[in-house]
Structure formats: structure tokens, C-alpha cells
């Protein structure tokens, strides 16, 4: 694949086909995926919402249909405006069930056991889709997509990697939750600082390209005695793995090899962890204990050089509550030099995804709603809600005036760039177990209970056990698939 | 070692009830004094004040002449046996006995020796290893007694110690207790409502009622010369007979008629004319089969058999009176002739209920 094509990551399916051709091991999987019926849909991206509403209205004709959406509490602002429009156009009523946002994946999975039919549509976090798909609670959307989805629906989405599992469509990404970096622009542009820094390191201050540069800059600015801190990166257990994930990928490795043996404890992994632990010394005092809210509030004080976060972080920092509003530079997460080439590995680590319950009596109508809600026109309405969770994930969103006002243009540029090239989370069955194991061990290394090598060896051993328990053959099918849909520029470099 | 106790003008009030009012009493060294009265008369309150659980509102408690009001209970050198014995139910008998010594800091060997000796003395040896909760009442009583005696108290307070025992145990214990007290020369304040216990063991008895001491005296005195109707009625078994009488006076000489006996001359005394009471012990009636000069024939209503003696209940005017006779005396008879010796009766003032003091006694003509 030619690199530099910004629209790559959207062309998931096409890329997968190419990947399939290249990977003999996938031959067994390929047919079911490739033999999908040709699209029958006449809808285009621009009118998909109208077509979806029309189709839903026809399906529900003469009946009183109600759809229930299970959503993380707090996302009503994103969902309701769209749902109201849907109801208006189709006469299909929509009801909501809210669950705490940390628990929605569990609740959806529990439905696979209890089959209460308490929802038709759910909004789980994307990384849980493999588990949900395997549990049988998700409807394989391929047949409906073939019928209703316009040709370029998924290509237009900047990140659709998480929508597929083992080559089948299970949901629509509706939230652009990629990691973005925040920098203190005044400090970056300060002439004295620039001089001092370049004298020492041989290059000027800038939005860093690599983690080495970022670590150097954080160390440079970290002067606690003067009330200046290098960074506000996360060090709580819940967040710590994400930063390491980026640092590790930036060193040029996949977390697993083709045989699903963990590579995380190789030299690069250990180095990445050592650097992460070293960087902990240049963070503000609350880093080890502060969660998201405290984190962006802390960065909002304006006395820290950099921060990491999502769209929500920017919404706060760009509000009047923040002292650093308008004084920020943004960039994707730093990358690394692999074989003399710069590799950037922005990371998509959360994000809400519309899925359809297999217990739903109206799976097709439910699907049509998700299609409707994720259409460019409607998703713009959803993302517009200033208090909501949904961050931009389609090109159209970045052109919307209201959205631009909320996030600011510089941020959106960095965000869009990141979205297009984001590496995925470990979308395997048991993702939670793999990641929790990683989190616990990284924290242990960060607080000095284990050496980085020990921590990663322990993680790798646990991963091997988890893989065995999950069924290695099944996991390999998905891993091969997942690797094939890594952003092309990244996939080619990683080993 | 044994002590004197003086109570002077003690008062204790609970809410609206004056439990003890103006109680004064002295207990000599080595004396066995019973505080006798019906339940609720204030004797337990008095005891609690002596022991130090209650602070009197007024008055003083002195042991060997020293006021105890500011002395905490355990420093008063008092031994106290509770009505329910208060055996430490979770401790063995041995530990119960040793408890006081332990608290006083007596050494282990000494403790051991004293416990064995005390157990020997009260014949408790076989109980020593038993748990406090496993004892029967008389065993508890003995252990409770041993438990206080072992600390050699200056004053022993016994609070109805026999009320939970059955009759034979009581009879046995009365003798033993008295003997023990004598041999130890122990000062004892014995609180009871049972006149038999008080009469049989005490050197002196203090009869108490409604917070007041009614009379203090030797058992003999209390029995022979009760000061008022209450004491007369409370002491004596079978109980004293109280019948109405009509008093005529000439000067200070008193002449009494009852429903059945007339012209009983009671000697000199202060009493108004009119209706008063006569208190007559059942022994004072003289019962005969034949009529005599000043006897009256009274119909027999029923007979109580006490084995060694019988009590005849005879119709006496509107009342029934009890008369003690030998067994078999009234066998098959409807009428018994009864005469009355005025010297043996007590004349009770109807208004004050006090026994009228008579200066000289003349036998009725």
C-alpha cells in the first residue's frame, strides 16, 4: 500500500481483501467474507439517513414498533436529538436504558446469558466487540449492510477497524476516541526556552515527533520548585497501559507475533516501559492518582508542559474554566524511529459503537437506526452536542461550524490526522483480561514493585495462558484479521 | 477484727417514695442483729447504703466509729451475701472463693491454703472444681458465704440468704450459721422477712416497716412486749389474734370487754374509752373441756394440725381466734371452753396502734 494516502484507514474492507490475498493463512477465512452479496443499496452517503428512515418506516408499517437503546449514562445528549428525528420520520418510538459507562460492555454481555430483550440497540465501547460477538449477543450486520449500506459508508468513517470481527460487521463506530497530545504553546514558542533546549539537545522545541523528544522536553520543563511541571500524563492503573501501548508500537512491534506469542516483553517493550517509568519523574505530583477529570483540570491550570487525552479533554481545556484556553498546541501521540523511518502510532482506545442485540425482535429496524444515526448528516447532529461523549469521526464533522467552535480548529486538525492513522486496541476475545493483566503489571513496574522486565514477562506469561484458554486457533483467526487492518503505514513497518 | 456499726438518722428517697427515713441503729461487736420486715420496708435499701451501693440522702454510717460515707464499697471491709448469691457463674467454685483474696493481692500459695481451709470449714471440698453455673441453691448459698468469709470481713451483711432454700435446708443452716457466727465472733447484720430466722438466730432484732424502725430488742422482748400492733402481728407463729374490745376507764384504770370475755382488768394506762384492740397470743388462751368460772364456750370451726400441737380456730364474736392445744384435745368436740388471762394480752390503742403500757396488772375478778 502506498503510504501517505490519508484516507487509508477508512478503506478497511478493501484493504482487508488485499491483505487476504497476501496472507495465505487467511485463505480459510476469506470465502465467507468475500462472498458477501453485492450491495443492493441505492443509497449514497448524502441521503443514507433518509433511505434508512424510509426503509425502517416500511418495515414497521402498520405496526407499533419501539426500539430500546442501552447507552452509557451521559450519552443521551448525543443520542436523543438523532433518535427524536428518527421517530419523527418513521413513527418508531425510541426508549432509553442507561447504565454506568464503565459497565455497559458487561451489561451487554450479560444479556447474552439472560436474554431479557431489554434493549435492541446498545452502545458498548469498541474494544468489547470481540467478546460480544463471540457471545452471540450481537447481530452479524453483514446481510443488512449488503442491503442498506452505501458503498463508501465505512470508507468515509475515519476509523472503522473496531466495527469488524473476524471479517464480519458487528457495529458502527460513532465516536472518535483517539488519543491526542496537548502542549503548552507559550512554552513551546518561548525564545529563551528554545535556546536553552536546543543548546542541550541540538534541536529546537516543537510538537515532538517521537517519545524520546517528548521525554526530553518534559524533563526540560520539569521544575517543580518553580511550579512548572513536565507533563500531566496518566499514571493511574486504569490509564497507564494506553500510554505504554503507544510507546511500544512506536518501537516497531506488534504486541503478538503470528503465532500469538506475546512480543510485549521483548527488548523494545522493556525499553518502552523503562522510558515510561523514567518519564514518571517529570510529571506533576497528582499524576499517579488522578483520573480523567482531575487530569484535565490539572492541565487547565496552565503550569504543565503537556497532556494526553481525548476530545472531552479538549472540550474542557477549550472552555472558560481552563486557564490554558487558546494557548495550546496539539499533535498526535509521538512516534518513534524504526529502521531510520519515523513511525506514528496514534491510538484509538475507547469509543462508543452502535450494535444490534440478537435478542431484538426487530434486528433490521434496529440496524437501520444505527445506520441512520451514523450517517454523515445525523452523526454531525450527534457530535454537535457540546456536553456529550461523541467526538468527531467523519470528515463532515470537521467542517461543521458548531463542532469547530467547541473543539477549536488546531485541535480538530490534530484529531483528524490521528483518527486516520490510529492503531487499534487489542481487539481479541478476552481484551479485558489481557489489558487488566498488562495494567496491573505496568503499575507494579511504575511504582517500583517489579522491574520492567519482570513486569512484562509476567504479563506475557499471563497472556499466553489467556490465549490458550480463549482458544488459540480462534484467536489467531481474529489476530491475523486485525493485523491486516492496522493502518497501512503502520502495518508495513511493524514486525 | 469484728466491727461495730452505727447507723444514725439515715434517709433515702427514691422519687416520691421515702424508702428509709430517720433510721438509727447500732450493731455491737460480735453481735448478730436481724433487720426484720416485710418486703418493701426499706431493709434492702438500708443494706445497699451500708454496703456503699447507695449514698444516703442524710445521716451517717459509721463502722468502728468512723464514717463510711466517703469510703468506696470495697474499702468498707464488708462481706455481703446476696439474696441470689451472685455466684460468678462463669468461674469455678475455687475461683469464686479465691476472688476476694486475689483482688486483695494475696499470694497464690496463701490463697490456695485459705481456700482449702474455708472449703474444709464449710464442707465445700467436693465442689471446688465445679463451675459456678452448675450449683444448686444450697450449694450456691454455701459458696457465697464462704466467698465473703474468706476475706475476713469486719462486718457480714446477709441479704435474705435463705429465701431460696427449701425448709429442711433452712433449718439446718440456721443452726450452722449461728454456730459459725459465734465461733468467729463475727458481727452480722442479717436482713430477712422471715421472723423464724430472725427469732432463732439473732441476738437482737430490729423490726422495720415503711422505712422506720418499729422496735429493737432481743427476740424474747420483741415477742413478749411488742410495741405496736404491727410488731405484735408480724412476730409469732401461729400469728397473734387481734379482736376488738370495748374499754371502760375509771381514773387511769382500764377495764375491757370483748365479744366473749367481760370485765378484763388491765391495770393503769393512758387510753380513751371506746373501741380498741386486744392482741392475744394463741398460747395465752386457756382451753379446757369443762367449763370453769371465767371461761366461755366457743364453737370449733376448724383445726390446723401442726403435729406436735394443734391450733383450734374458734368463733370469737364475729372473729375467728386461734388457740394452741395439745394434739387430740379437740377430737370430736363442737365446743371448747376458753378462759383468758389478762396479764398475757396486749391492749392496742385503736388510733395510734401502739400497745398500751400498763403500770400494774390486776387479775379480773
Amino acid at each position, binding site marked *: 500500500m502506498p503510504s501517505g494516502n490519508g484516507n487509508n484507514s477508512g478503506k478497511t474492507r478493501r484493504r482487508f481483501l488485499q491483505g487476504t490475498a497476501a496472507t495465505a493463512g487467511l485463505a480459510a477465512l476469506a470465502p465467507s467474507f468475500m462472498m458477501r452479496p453485492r450491495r443492493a443499496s441505492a443509497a449514497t452517503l448524502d441521503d443514507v439517513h433518509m433511505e434508512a428512515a424510509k426503509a425502517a418506516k416500511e418495515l414497521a408499517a402498520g405496526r407499533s414498533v419501539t426500539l430500546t437503546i442501552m447507552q452509557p449514562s451521559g450519552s443521551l445528549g448525543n443520542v436523543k436529538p438523532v433518535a427524536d428525528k428518527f421517530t419523527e420520520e418513521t413513527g418508531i418510538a425510541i426508549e432509553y436504558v442507561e447504565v454506568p459507562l464503565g459497565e455497559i460492555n*458487561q451489561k451487554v*454481555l*450479560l444479556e*447474552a*446469558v439472560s436474554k431479557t430483550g431489554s434493549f435492541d440497540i446498545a452502545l458498548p465501547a469498541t474494544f468489547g466487540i470481540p*467478546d*460480544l460477538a*463471540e*457471545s452471540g449477543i450481537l447481530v452479524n450486520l453483514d446481510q443488512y449492510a449488503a442491503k442498506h449500506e452505501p458503498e463508501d459508508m465505512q470508507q468515509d468513517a475515519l476509523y472503522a477497524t473496531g466495527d469488524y470481527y473476524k471479517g464480519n460487521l458487528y457495529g458502527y463506530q460513532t465516536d472518535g476516541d483517539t488519543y491526542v497530545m496537548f502542549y503548552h504553546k507559550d512554552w513551546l514558542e518561548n525564545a529563551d526556552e528554545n535556546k536553552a533546549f536546543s543548546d542541550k539537545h541540538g534541536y529546537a522545541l516543537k510538537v515532538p515527533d517521537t517519545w524520546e523528544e517528548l521525554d526530553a522536553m518534559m524533563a526540560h520543563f520539569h521544575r517543580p520548585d518553580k511550579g512548572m511541571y513536565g507533563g500531566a500524563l496518566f499514571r*493511574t*492503573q*486504569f490509564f497507564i497501559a494506553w500510554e505504554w501501548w503507544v510507546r511500544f508500537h512506536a518501537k516497531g512491534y506488534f504486541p503478538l507475533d503470528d503465532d500469538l506469542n506475546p512480543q510485549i516483553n521483548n527488548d523494545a517493550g522493556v525499553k518502552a516501559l523503562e522510558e515510561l517509568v523514567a518519564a514518571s519523574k517529570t510529571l506533576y*505530583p*497528582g499524576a*499517579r*492518582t*488522578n*483520573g480523567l477529570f*482531575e487530569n484535565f483540570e490539572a492541565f487547565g491550570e496552565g503550569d504543565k508542559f503537556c497532556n494526553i487525552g481525548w476530545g472531552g479533554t479538549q472540550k474542557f481545556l477549550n472552555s472558560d474554566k481552563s486557564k490554558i484556553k487558546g494557548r495550546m498546541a496539539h499533535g498526535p501521540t509521538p512516534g518513534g524511529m524504526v529502521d531510520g523511518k519515523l513511525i506514528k502510532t496514534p491510538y484509538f482506545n475507547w469509543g462508543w459503537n452502535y450494535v444490534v442485540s440478537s435478542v431484538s425482535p426487530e434486528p433490521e429496524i434496529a440496524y437501520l437506526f444505527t445506520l441512520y444515526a451514523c450517517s454523515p448528516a445525523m452523526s454531525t447532529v450527534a457530535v454537535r452536542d457540546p456536553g456529550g461523549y461523541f467526538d468527531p469521526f467523519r470528515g463532515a464533522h470537521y467542517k461543521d461550524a458548531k463542532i469547530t467552535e467547541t473543539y477549536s480548529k488546531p485541535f480538530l486538525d490534530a484529531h483528524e490526522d490521528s483518527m486516520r492513522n490510529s492503531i487499534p486496541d487489542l481487539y481479541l*476475545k*478476552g481484551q*479485558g*483480561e489481557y489489558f*487488566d493483566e498488562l*495494567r*496491573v503489571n505496568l*503499575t*507494579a513496574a511504575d*511504582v517500583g514493585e517489579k522491574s520492567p522486565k519482570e513486569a512484562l514477562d509476567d504479563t506475557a506469561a499471563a497472556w499466553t495462558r489467556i490465549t490458550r*484458554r480463549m*482458544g488459540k486457533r480462534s484467536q489467531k483467526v481474529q489476530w491475523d484479521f486485525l493485523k491486516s487492518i492496522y493502518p497501512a503505514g503502520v502495518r508495513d513497518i511493524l514486525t | 477484727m469484728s466491727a461495730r456499726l452505727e447507723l444514725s438518722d439515715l434517709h433515702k428517697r427514691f422519687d416520691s417514695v421515702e424508702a428509709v427515713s430517720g433510721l438509727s441503729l447500732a450493731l455491737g461487736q460480735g453481735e448478730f442483729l436481724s433487720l426484720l420486715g416485710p418486703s418493701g420496708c426499706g431493709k434492702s435499701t438500708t443494706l445497699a447504703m451500708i*454496703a*456503699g*451501693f447507695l449514698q444516703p440522702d442524710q445521716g451517717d454510717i459509721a463502722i468502728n466509729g468512723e464514717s463510711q460515707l466517703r469510703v468506696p*464499697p*470495697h*474499702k*468498707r471491709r*464488708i*462481706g*455481703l451475701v*446476696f*439474696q*441470689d*448469691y*451472685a*455466684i*460468678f*457463674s*462463669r*468461674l469455678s467454685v475455687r475461683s469464686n472463693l479465691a*476472688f*476476694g483474696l*486475689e*483482688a*486483695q493481692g494475696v499470694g497464690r500459695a496463701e490463697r490456695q491454703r485459705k481456700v482449702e481451709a474455708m472449703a474444709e470449714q464449710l464442707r465445700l471440698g467436693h465442689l471446688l472444681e465445679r463451675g459456678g453455673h452448675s450449683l444448686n441453691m444450697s450449694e450456691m448459698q454455701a459458696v*457465697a458465704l464462704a*466467698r*465473703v468469709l474468706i*476475706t475476713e470481713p469486719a462486718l457480714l451483711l446477709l441479704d435474705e440468704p435463705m429465701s431460696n432454700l427449701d425448709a429442711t435446708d433452712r433449718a439446718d443452716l440456721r443452726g450452722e450459721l449461728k454456730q459459725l457466727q459465734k465461733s468467729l465472733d463475727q458481727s452480722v447484720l442479717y436482713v430477712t422477712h422471715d421472723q423464724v430466722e430472725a427469732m432463732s438466730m439473732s441476738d437482737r432484732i430490729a423490726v422495720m416497716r415503711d422505712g422506720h424502725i418499729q422496735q429493737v430488742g432481743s427476740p424474747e422482748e420483741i415477742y413478749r412486749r411488742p410495741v405496736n400492733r404491727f410488731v405484735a402481728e408480724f412476730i409469732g407463729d401461729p400469728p397473734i389474734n387481734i379482736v376488738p374490745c370495748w374499754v371502760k376507764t375509771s381514773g387511769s384504770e382500764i377495764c375491757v370487754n370483748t365479744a366473749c370475755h367481760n370485765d378484763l382488768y388491765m391495770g393503769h394506762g393512758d387510753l380513751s374509752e371506746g373501741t380498741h384492740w386486744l392482741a392475744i397470743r394463741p398460747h395465752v388462751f386457756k382451753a379446757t373441756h369443762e367449763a370453769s368460772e371465767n371461761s366461755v364456750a366457743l364453737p370449733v370451726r376448724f383445726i390446723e394440725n401442726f403435729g406436735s400441737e394443734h391450733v383450734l380456730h374458734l368463733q370469737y364474736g364475729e372473729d375467728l381466734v386461734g388457740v394452741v392445744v395439745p394434739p387430740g384435745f379437740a377430737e370430736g368436740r363442737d365446743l371448747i371452753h376458753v378462759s383468758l388471762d389478762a396479764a398475757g394480752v396486749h391492749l392496742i390503742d385503736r388510733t395510734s396502734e401502739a400497745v398500751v403500757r400498763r403500770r400494774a396488772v390486776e387479775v379480773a375478778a
Partner: protein
Amino acid sequence: MAQESLDATAMKQAAPPRRRGLPFNVALVLPAQLTVLAVVLCPTLIVLWLSITDWQPTSGVTWYQAEPVWHWNFYDLYFDDRFIGALLRTILVVCVCVALELAIAIGLALLFLEEWPWRKLAVSAVILPMMIVPVDAANAFFMLFNERGPINHIISLVIGEAFEFSWLADPDWALLPIMLAEIWQWTPLMFLLVLTGLMNLPENQIRAAIVLGASPARIFFRVMLPLMAPVIAIALLVRSIETFKIFDPVYILTRGGPGAATETISMFMYNGAFVYFRMGYIAAAGLLVLIVVISICLALSKPLKRHHG
């Protein structure tokens, strides 16, 4: 039938109850018995089955079709540090909480034993914590131990510099707020039990000890405490059982985190079953816990039996 049951003891000794009467008394216990069977026995049987399978909803099969793995769940549990850790941690929490609850309760009860003005009202005030919905109580403690909460504020005021420690995020300290919440909420119960026991003590035994010259400490340890033994045994038993099940405060305060630093057995099983959805594995853990708890309880239930007998 009727005549026989007039006197319970007579009834007990009565020769085989007449057939006609038997169904009636059995019918009376039937609704209760059936409910218990439905909600306890059936699940227990299911647990037996699940514990030998590796049922995971993520494998897409229903539970009765799950693949048996026989003893392997138990084998894995034996080597599962997290399970063993949770078990030991739970025992620690039970020991610490119950012991402290008892100690504080005894102290408080002694304070409240004497009569003083407003005593009854004060008792009512002190037992307020046990009246609170546990989830709400846990929430209150979450706020108290927040890094910006009043506990840190008080500490700041005492030490004279800003103290913003995140209790719940620190693996070494996160268990403390949980235990404090538990102790705060349930000491009142222990207090009521002990107070009831103390007030029902035979007063004369204490007076006897006083007159015999025993010091307050001696009276307490030699006389009162032994007398309180059955009450304390019951209190300890009841509280230990309840504390062993501790879930609400852990869930609200930390969810067992950070890592597994505050994972009690209930939290471990919740996480295993409803976060990782390792149902078979957790069923096996549940079975082990059931066996342990029931055998301990049967051994310890004697005091209850004695009191009722």
C-alpha cells in the same frame, strides 16, 4: 393432634405424630421451603455443574451445553494468586473489622452503661450509621476519602500543609477507607448487642465483685466479660459472616482496585463472573467458598443453638 401440641415438650416426646396431622405442619413450612429451594438449592446444583465446566458467555454456548473441564477449574484456582489473595484479604478484613468493631463497641457500651441525662437519645444517635443504606454509606465514604475530601482537609489542617492524597487509588491504602466504612456502619450493631448484653448482666455479681475489692479492670475481665461470652460469640459470628460477604463498599469505593489491591472474595467473584465472564471458573470458586463458609458456620452455630435452646 391439637391436644398433643398443647404442650410443646409433650409434643416433642409424643410417639410418632399422627398421619393426619403431619401434612398440615409440613404444608405450613412448604412455601418457605420451596422458595429457599428455588433460590438456593437449584443454584447450588447449577453451581456444581458449572464448576466443572469452563462456561464463558463469550464462547457463545448456553450454560447447560458448556464443555466439561472436570477438575481443572479447581486446579487453576489453587494456583490463582488473585483468588488466594482475595481470600486472604477477606479474612484480613473480617479479622480487622470485626475485632475493631467489638473493641469499640465494648468501649462505647461501657460509656453508655451508666445512667446519665439524654442517654437514650444518645444511643439512638450513635446507632445512626447502621440505619443507612450501605450503598449510600459507601458513597459518603467515597466523598470523605476523595483526594479533595474532608479527611484530607482535616489532615492538611493538622499537619499545616496541603495534603491531597488519593486514598482509593493507592494500592497500599485503598483498603483502609473500605474497612473504615464497614466499621463505621456496623460498629453500632455490635454496640447495641454488647449494650444489651451488659444491661442484662446480673447486677449482683458485679456488686459482689466490687465488695470483694476487685478493681474495675478485674471486674470487667473476670466477671463481666465471661458473662458476656455468649452474646459476644453471637455478635462475632453474625458480624463475621456478614463481613465475609463484604461487597457494597468495595464495589462503590474501588471495584477491587487499584489492580486487585482491595479485591475481597465477593469482589473477586463479581469481577471474574461479570467483568471477565469466566462463569464456570467463578462457579468453582463459589463452590469452594460455599463449602468453607457452611462448614465454618455449622461449627460455630452452637452458640446460637444454645441461646435458642
